[in-house]
């Protein structure tokens, strides 16, 4: 097992190196440089040149990449000029809040999605199945930024059950209940699409398992139907559901961008969008490399989990 993990870790290095080159080149090639973004209307060639010099952007491309990579390897992500603070501090802080949002969402969509899929499969063609299939289709089809705005209008502006935006109250205590009230709407909105996808795939995975012989055997020996579904069938179906969960975890992380903007959640997605608009090169590069590294780790974790469930994969 340790050898398998080590091999996967080593194979991640070229991936990350490639990502660092791509993101560096993209930021170097997009029109409009940071000095232009800072100076706006005042961007005379003279002012731009001076500011680029102050920002250290007047060096050749290769040299800039090597300096950046060299610092990166030593854990120095540089300094964001648009926020005037260390990139790593900002990325870590923002990534944690995204993880909280995406993690909560992921738990919601996993539990709801798998249960809904299992129920639909167990009651194939019955009313429950049709209702679930319909709701799931609806959930997959609604864009999350629209759903988010509608939820804000209903639950925050009209009913005033939840705060509109942000992560903490501006005044008052920062306790768990404050966090939960801020987290509820964005986490639910973010979970909707993934719940739908997971539910559909869980349903088909379950249907396949339910047709197999050991299920008939279980029923024949008198196991209660609930036990058949939740204990026997679901466990077998999990082998094909877990990779889907892994993919959806990635989806929830990247989908967080829209939700973070609508709910002003101070996460890494919103940070990257702002940073791109402001041409904050180091913040974009550092943020993307960090998130990419997390994705690689995440995929690794999923593969390991899968290989624990199904030893045939471990080759």
């Amino acid at each position, binding site marked *: 097992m340790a050898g398998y993990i080590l091999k996967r870790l080593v194979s991640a290095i070229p991936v990350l190196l490639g990502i660092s080159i791509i993101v560096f080149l993209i930021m170097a090639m997009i029109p409009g440089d940071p000095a232009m973004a800072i100076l706006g209307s005042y961007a005379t060639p003279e002012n731009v040149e001076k*500011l680029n010099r102050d920002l250290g952007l007047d060096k050749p491309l290769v040299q800039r990449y090597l300096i950046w990579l060299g610092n990166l390897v030593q854990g120095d992500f540089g300094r964001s000029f648009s926020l005037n603070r260390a990139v790593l501090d900002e990325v870590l802080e923002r990534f944690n809040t995204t993880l909280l949002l995406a993690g909560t969402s992921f738990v919601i969509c996993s539990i709801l999605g798998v249960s809904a899929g299992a129920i639909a499969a167990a009651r194939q063609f019955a009313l429950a199945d049709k209702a679930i299939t319909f709701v799931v289709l609806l959930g997959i089809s609604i864009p999350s930024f629209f759903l988010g705005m509608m939820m804000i209008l209903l639950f925050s502006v009209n009913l005033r059950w939840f705060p509109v935006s942000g992560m903490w109250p501006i005044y008052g205590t920062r306790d768990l209940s404050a966090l939960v009230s801020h987290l509820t709407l964005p986490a639910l909105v973010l979970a909707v699409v993934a719940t739908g996808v997971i539910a559909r795939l869980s349903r088909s995975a379950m249907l396949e398992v339910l047709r197999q012989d050991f299920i008939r055997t279980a029923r024949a020996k008198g196991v209660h139907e609930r036990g058949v579904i939740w204990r026997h069938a679901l466990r077998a179906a999990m082998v094909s559901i877990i990779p889907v969960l892994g993919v959806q975890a990635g989806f929830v992380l990247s989908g967080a961008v829209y939700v973070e903007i609508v709910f002003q959640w101070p996460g890494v997605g919103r940070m990257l969008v702002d940073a791109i608009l402001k041409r904050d090169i180091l913040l974009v590069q550092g943020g993307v490399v960090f998130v990419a590294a997390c994705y690689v780790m995440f995929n690794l974790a999923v593969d390991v989990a899968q290989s624990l469930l199904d030893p045939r994969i471990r080759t």
Partner: protein
Amino acid sequence: MKHSEITRRVLLAATTATVVGLGAVAASAQSPANVLIVGQIAEPKSLDPAAVTAVNDFRILMNVFDGLVRYRDGTLEVEEALATDWTISDDGTVYTFSLRDGVKFHDGSDFNAEAVKFNFDRMLDEGHPYHDTGPFPLSFFFSAVNSVDVVDSMSVQFTLNAPYAPFLSNLAYPTGLIVSPASVEAHGSEVGRNPSGTGAFKFVEWRSNEAVVVEANPGYWDGAPALETVVFRPITDANTRTAEMLAGGIDLMVEVPPVSLSEFQGDAFTIHEQAGPHVWFLILNAKEGPFADVRVRQAANYAINKEAIVNDVLEGTAAVAAGPTPPAFAWAYNENLQPYPYDPDKARALIAEAGAEGAELTFFVTEGGSGMLDPVAMGTAIQADLEAVGLEVSIETYEWNTFLGEVNPGLEGKADMAEMAWMTNDPDTLPFLALRTAAWPDQGGFNSGYYSNPEVDKLLEAARASTDQDERAMLYKEMQTIVQEDAPWVFVANWKQNAVTSDRVGNFSLQPSFFLLLDEVTKN
């Protein structure tokens, strides 16, 4: 089974009720009196006045810092602030300021002539020990300053390399705000997160991506503010900002999108409006193509229905512009100037006279950007108006930074017209940087349409060299008449900044400078 079923349902119901209940409690908590929560459009970059360029940051800074001078309430005319008096030498190159006695920075250090010198040297002198706390992108506002000298502890002298009339109003701009030297020495390049000024409010804390909190400075030299605390919240999404305002999460909201204004009709809210030193225009390429002919440029001014743009596209959040200078510069604005009327027939006649019927035009449009209002919708309306008088317009759209990269180096060989907007603090700035012959892009200016009129050049040079406001006003007024006639631009709109306050907020008014001044605001 039955039993566990019931337990589970009870549990589920209890959880739901708790979550909803908690949310309800947290959301309905009223914000305390004397705590004003301001919905800002973005996270500030820094709270170091010398290091920032955005109006969004200025809104906070103007409440924490003072400059030597400031704009008189409701105007763009300069009055005393940290300086109580000043004299200007006859040749307009030496300014001597007497400083206000007994003023202390929030960190307890004294405000004096040394502090003033420290601030300008830090920005302008590359050898200054704290010059590395920059970069200082707007330091060129003071590029005319040769030296800053301490005369005695309460008077300071600026020597300029040439007469430069906008100097005083640049001092009133946020780039000229005075930072405590002790705070720069203590925090180095982190001073932007640990600001210390002399203003009406003291900095308390900056919670990243959440809020900047300031509290009243009871010893403020101009009278302690009525509010105890002000919280600036960054809410980048305009719809979310509107929702926060409706839900009571913020007390004051700036830059309300035109389409959301109708949400705030009624007694619970007050809408504030104030025209500012802003002008939205089209740069016309006067060097080549159809717009090289002044008649076609005038035709474009007649053909575009500016009333429809400000009323329908911008929902009344802007006024029709008459010339290159915004009316907010009341002292320098030529009241006799009438906007080009909407007259498609006259436009067609002028185009026919110039033989430009059916000319094909390339039009650069931006997707957004500072002061650009609703550029895509406005660009489309303009395209339709020009096509109605027989010009073929094809739009090319660019993201803002890319757009600046295309437009600022000049339109030659690329486009016939481009959108642009400027917000300035002195009537000198925009025409000097964008209408003079010596401001063509190859000479480092913003005259991207290559307009050139020696008469205008002469007027602008003379206005910059004069220190007499009445004389300057006369020169600017004459310049406006000529430029309007020459039509190097299509003069479209002057933006009215807006804000909404809740009914708990009192004594608030917007300033023509677009700064947000909160020292007299109340909240019950």
